[in-house]
C-alpha cells in the first residue's frame, strides 16, 4: 500500500509544547510491604523493584509474598468473612463501598498520576477513563449490596475470593474484582501484577481511610508464584483472574476436581469490521481508538481490521494519515496519545511478533515518530496485505500493532471475524441498522461495539466466548460470579 502524495507530515505542523502533569501530588515510599488484615506488614519472601516504563527509573521496592504470606492473607480474609463481613447487613456493606468510591474520586488525581507512572499509559487516559470508571464501579456495586435479593442469583456469598489482575488497567481491574466481591459479602485476597503494584497499594491505604474492617481486603504483591499460591490455597472458594489465556487454562486445570469456582477474563483478537457504507472518518477514529488506546495493551483491542475491499485503499490512506498525528511520548504529558510499553518483556514480545509479521510477508508501516531514548517504546504500527494464516492475524500482540485484512461480503466478514479461538469483543462500522443487528448476532464475541469501540461501563457486562474465558464482570451479570446461585 503506497501512501498518497497529499499526506501532510502533520506531526510537524502541529507541534505541542510539553504539558506535563505534576508528580508532586504523590507521596511515594521507598518500599512497600503487604496489606494483610488491615495493616501493612513485611513479607517473608524477597522483594522486587517496580519501575517507570517510560524512563526505567525505579519507583519503589515491593515485597514478594511467599506461600506463608498468602496463607496469612487468606486466613485474615476468612476471619473477616466469618466474623464480620458475611454477617454485616448489605446496607452497611454498601456504605463502606460508597465511602471507597468517594475517596477514589477525592484522590483521583493522585491515583491517575501514579497509574501513569507505574503503567506508562497517557495521563489523559488514566485521568479521564481509568480512574473515573474505578469510582463508578464502586458506586454501582455499592448499590447492589442491599438489593441482592433482586439479583436473580440469591444473596449467599461464596466466601474468600482469590483475585489476580493484569498490568494493563491496574486499578480498573482491581475495581472490577473487588467491588462486586465485597458487595456480595465475600472477602478478598488480591494480587496486582508485578510490574504495576503501586495503585493497588494506594488502594490499600484508601481501605484504611474508609475504616474498612481488617481482612476484608488483602493485597499481596508478587509474581507468578504468588498467584499460584492463591489459586492452590485450600481455603480459597473462588478464583477470579484476568490475564493470558495460557495462565487461564492453567488455573482451570489447577482447580479441577475442587469446589472452587472461577471467572476467567482472558485474551482476544478482536475484529473491527468496516463496511463500505460506514461513516469513514468516524470509523477511522474508532479503529485508532480500538488498537492504540492504552498502547494496544487491551485484551479486547480491535487488533484485526477487516475493511471492505471496495473502500480499502481510501480507508487505509485515511487511517495512516490519522496515525501520523498520534503523539507518542511522556505518559504524564497531557497531550500524549500513546505512552510507554509496560515492560521490556512485553516490548520484546511485540518486536518478536512484528518481526514475524514482516518475515511472513505482510507490509509493515509506522508514521515517522521520534521515540524517547530511555524506557520502552513502540510506534503505532499497521500491517497491510495480511492473510488469516499470518501469525499477526492469529496471535494476541498486546501492543500498538494493527493487522489489516479485507473482505467482500458480510458473510465473509463474519467468517473471518469468527475464525479465531478467542471471542472477547468485536466492532462493526456501517450506517445500515439491519446490518448492524445481523452482524451483532453473528459475531461470536461477548461484547460487540457497533459504530463505537472500547467503551466500558459498570452497568455493562464484559467477558468472552470460547478461549477468551468465562463469566462476566460488570452489570447485574457480574454478581453471578460472587453469589452461590450464580453461574458455574
Amino acid at each position, binding site marked *: 500500500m503506497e501512501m498518497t502524495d497529499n499526506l501532510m507530515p502533520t506531526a510537524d505542523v502541529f507541534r505541542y509544547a510539553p504539558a506535563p502533569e505534576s508528580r508532586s501530588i504523590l507521596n511515594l515510599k521507598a518500599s512497600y510491604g503487604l496489606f494483610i488484615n488491615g495493616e501493612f506488614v513485611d513479607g517473608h519472601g524477597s522483594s522486587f523493584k517496580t519501575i517507570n516504563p517510560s524512563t526505567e527509573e525505579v519507583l519503589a521496592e515491593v515485597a514478594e509474598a511467599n506461600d506463608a504470606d498468602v496463607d496469612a492473607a487468606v486466613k485474615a480474609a476468612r476471619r473477616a468473612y466469618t466474623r464480620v463481613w458475611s454477617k454485616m447487613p448489605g446496607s452497611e456493606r454498601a456504605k463502606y463501598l460508597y465511602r471507597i468510591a468517594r475517596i477514589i474520586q477525592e484522590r483521583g488525581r493522585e491515583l491517575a498520576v501514579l497509574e501513569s507512572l507505574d503503567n506508562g499509559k497517557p495521563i489523559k487516559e488514566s485521568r479521564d477513563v481509568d480512574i473515573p470508571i474505578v469510582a463508578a464501579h464502586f458506586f454501582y456495586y455499592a448499590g447492589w449490596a442491599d438489593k441482592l435479593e433482586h439479583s436473580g442469583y440469591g444473596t449467599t456469598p461464596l466466601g474468600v475470593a482469590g483475585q489476580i489482575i493484569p498490568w494493563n488497567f491496574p486499578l480498573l481491574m482491581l475495581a472490577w474484582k473487588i467491588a462486586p466481591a465485597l458487595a456480595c459479602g465475600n472477602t478478598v485476597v488480591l494480587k496486582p501484577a508485578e510490574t504495576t503494584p503501586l495503585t493497588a497499594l494506594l488502594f490499600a491505604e484508601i481501605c484504611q481511610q474508609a475504616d474498612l474492617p481488617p481482612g476484608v481486603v488483602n493485597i499481596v504483591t508478587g509474581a507468578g508464584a504468588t498467584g499460584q499460591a492463591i489459586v492452590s490455597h485450600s481455603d480459597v472458594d473462588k478464583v477470579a483472574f484476568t490475564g493470558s489465556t495460557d495462565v487461564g487454562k492453567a488455573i482451570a486445570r489447577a482447580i*479441577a476436581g475442587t469446589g472452587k469456582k472461577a471467572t476467567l477474563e482472558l485474551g482476544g483478537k478482536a475484529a473491527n469490521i468496516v463496511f463500505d457504507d460506514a461513516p469513514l472518518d468516524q470509523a477511522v477514529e474508532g479503529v485508532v481508538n480500538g488498537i492504540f488506546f492504552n498502547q494496544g495493551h487491551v485484551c479486547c483491542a480491535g487488533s484485526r481490521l477487516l475493511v471492505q475491499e471496495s473502500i480499502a485503499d481510501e480507508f487505509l490512506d485515511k487511517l495512516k494519515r490519522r496515525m501520523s498525528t498520534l503523539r507518542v511520548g511522556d505518559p504524564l504529558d497531557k497531550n500524549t496519545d500513546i505512552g510507554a510499553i509496560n515492560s521490556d518483556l512485553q516490548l520484546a514480545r511485540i518486536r518478536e511478533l512484528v518481526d514475524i509479521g514482516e518475515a511472513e510477508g505482510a507490509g509493515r508501516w509506522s508514521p515517522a515518530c521520534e521515540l524517547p531514548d530511555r524506557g520502552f517504546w513502540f510506534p503505532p504500527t499497521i500491517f497491510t496485505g495480511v492473510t488469516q494464516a499470518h501469525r499477526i492475524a492469529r496471535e494476541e500482540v498486546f501492543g500498538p500493532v494493527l493487522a489489516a485484512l479485507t473482505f467482500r461480503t458480510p458473510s465473509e466478514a463474519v467468517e473471518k471475524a469468527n475464525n479465531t479461538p478467542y471471542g472477547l469483543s468485536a466492532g462493526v462500522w456501517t450506517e445500515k441498522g439491519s446490518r448492524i443487528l445481523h452482524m451483532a448476532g453473528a459475531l461470536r464475541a461477548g*461484547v460487540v461495539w457497533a459504530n*463505537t469501540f472500547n467503551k466500558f*461501563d459498570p452497568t455493562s457486562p464484559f467477558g468472552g466466548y*470460547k478461549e477468551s474465558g468465562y463469566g462476566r464482570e460488570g452489570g447485574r451479570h457480574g454478581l453471578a460470579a460472587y453469589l452461590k*446461585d450464580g*453461574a458455574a
Partner: protein
Amino acid sequence: MSRIDVRKTYKLFIGGDFPRSESGYSYLVNDAKGTFVANAALASRKDARDAVVAARKAFGSWSSRTAYNRGQILYRVAEIMEDRRPQFVLAVQQSEGLSAAKANAVVDAAIDRLVWYAGWADKLTQVVGNANPVSGPFFNLSTPEPTGVVAVLAPQDSSLLGLISVIAPVIISGNVVVMVSSFERPLPAVTFSEVLATSDVPGGVINILTGSAATVAPWLASHMDVNAIDLVGVAGEIQLATDLEVAAADNLKRVRRAPASEPDWTTSPGLDTMTDFLEIKTVWHPMGV
C-alpha cells in the same frame, strides 16, 4: 405355534442417522432382572468425533431459528412421546426395574419436563437478559446466546427422566448436543432417538451415543470443537470427573461439574440448567441524531 417376534437393533443416533458403531463393537444390555434385552452399539472415539462434526454442522441453523420455533419443535417432541408412552413405560420398566405404575409416573414427569422447557424458549432472553443504563449516550443490551456444541454425560440411573432433564435445557436455547447415554440403561435413550427422528428436530441437533462414559468422555472433554460439557453422568467418580475437567481446560470448555451423587430428578430444575450453557453478549450502539 407362537409367532417368533421381530427384535429391534439398537443403534447410535448421529446427524439424524442410525449408524452402528464404527468400531463394530456392541455390548450386552440386560434388564433390571438380568435377562438379555439387546446388544447395544458401543460408541467409540471415532463415533464421538463424528457426532461432534454432525452437531457443529447443525449448530448454525438451530441457533438461528426463532425461539418460538425451537419451543414448538420441543413441544412436538413431547407430543410424540405421549403418543408412544407404552413404549417408554416398557423401556423404563426394563431399565430401571420399576413397577408399571412407577414407570408411568416417570414417563409423565419426563414428558411434563419437556413441555416445561419448551415454554422457556422465548422467555429465557427476557429473564436473563438486561438493558443496561450506561452513563453515556449509548444503547446497551445484554442477551444470552447458546454456547455451541455441548457434550452431555447422561445420568447413569435415571434413564429417561434424567436424560430428558439434561438434554432439554441445553438445546432449548439453541445449543446442540452430543450425549453419552447411561451405560447399563441405554434403551430409553435409543427409544428417544427414534422419537427425535420422527419429530421436527433437525438431524445433528441431538446426537446420542450408547456406551461407556469412561471410554468416550475423555475424547469429548478434550475435543477442541466442543464448547461445554455436563459431567453429571460421572457423578461420584471423583478421579474421572477431575481428569475430564482437566481435559476440558484445553479450550476452556464451560463445565457443569459432577455432583457427589446423582441428583433427584423429580425436583423442579433451576435456571442454571440452562444458563450454564449460555454466553451473555452485550451490544453497544451510540444514540444521536
